[in-house]
């Protein structure tokens, strides 16, 4: 049977899982779990003990700089190193592919813009892409700090089988959702206008 405490622990685990490397502060946990800070702290401590006591757990909870975070257990560090040599099947990591997509569609683009779009630092992937010859510097932005502008190379076009950069298929950037809302809102707007204009006979 699931107990209230089980549910609290499960919720906590799912929150921490999603929060990733940013973690969650005790304040945030209390708000999210809809409970007192004290209870939240106790629950977090219990989650940690559960992880430590379970030999089949690969992860545990740590508190760094005031935030609780899920991390892999130290004993698997050596095994995790193997993941470095096992990049995804495309021989290009997801991170690199993401950065490449941004550069391809948004070029010329600065590192800061890429970071903003992804929400994470992208120095590593950019370096990799430059090293692979898919991406190059295309001048500098005329603004403070004169940041480097990145763009794609001919090798990129060649590897991706593109005649030219215009041949990239179009990309949906916004969710249809936001379009949908706008549409909805235009429809409602029209409806409302007709309503006031025609004295509500629009049925």
């Amino acid at each position, binding site marked *: 049977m699931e107990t209230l405490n089980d549910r609290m622990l499960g919720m906590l685990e799912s929150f921490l899982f999603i929060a990733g490397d940013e973690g969650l502060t005790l304040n945030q946990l209390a708000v999210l779990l809809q409970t007192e800070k004290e209870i939240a702290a106790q629950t977090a401590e219990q989650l940690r003990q559960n992880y430590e006591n379970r030999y089949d757990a690969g992860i545990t909870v740590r508190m760094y700089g005031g935030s609780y975070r899920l991390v892999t257990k130290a004993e698997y560090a050596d095994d995790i190193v193997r993941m470095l040599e096992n990049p995804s099947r495309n021989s290009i990591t997801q991170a690199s592919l993401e950065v490449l*997509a941004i550069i391809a569609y948004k070029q010329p683009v600065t590192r800061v813009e890429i970071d903003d779009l992804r929400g994470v630092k992208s120095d590593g992937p950019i370096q990799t892409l430059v090293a692979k010859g898919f991406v190059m510097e295309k001048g500098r932005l005329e603004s403070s700090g004169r940041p480097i502008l990145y763009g794609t190379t001919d090798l990129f076009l060649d590897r991706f089988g593109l005649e030219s950069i215009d041949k990239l*298929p179009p990309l949906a950037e916004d969710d249809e959702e936001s379009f949908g809302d706008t549409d909805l809102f235009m429809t409602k707007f029209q409806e409302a206008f007709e309503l*006031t204009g025609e004295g509500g006979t629009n049925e």
Partner: protein
Amino acid sequence: MTYSVKLEAFEGPLDLLLHLINRLEIDIYDIPMAELTSQYIEHLHAMRVLELDELSEYLVLAATLLEIKSKMLLPIHEEEALDEAGTFDLEEDPRDELVARLIEYKKYKEAANSLKESADDRAVHFTKLPEDLSGYGEVAVVESDEKLNVFDLISAFQKMLERKKLRAPLSASIMKSERSVSEKMDSIMTLLERLGGSCDFEALFDDGDIEDLVVTFLSLLELMKRMDIVVKQEGNFARMMIQVGTEDDNGNIE
């Protein structure tokens, strides 16, 4: 006919036909052509807002329906209905092709629904960003000449958009106030009062992201519907003004 229907809601002529068959409780394998055709054409008449090339797709099917209907009115001679072996030639029903198309289309329409359900089931499971492995050492870069696929770029981009929704949300959203329509309605009314009962329409849309704008707009619509406000425009391209609505005794807006 009092039955009214939102025509834009149909995905095309076949969709409209399926809808009619369903509504009229017609056996798809024994379609009364005259009835269906007249209903279909009646609906076409009601479709005022269709664009021309969309309308043409509906008209093509209307022509097909009429053709089938007229074929069915032709008397069938016994010698034609019976082939040489003396059995009925069952291939001759003029409706066969249409029925086959409808059934085929219906299959995929149903499949679309089950895909939707499956996507909804999937959407309740959240995942996380991959961990940064750079702390463990240099990530291996495998050199290869393999052709890469440009569609992988799109997938990568879409995944990133999805992930972004999972980032930053926690801290930010907890304190973030709900941008609810009702709150916005209150704040618009307060603003109007402060400004002496009217204000420039555009002034309400000065800032905020698309979501804010939509909420503002929806709030205005709701206020208009409740007749709390009226929107006035002196002429084409003139500025629109928002005014607090005042009701006379008959409940009409001033």
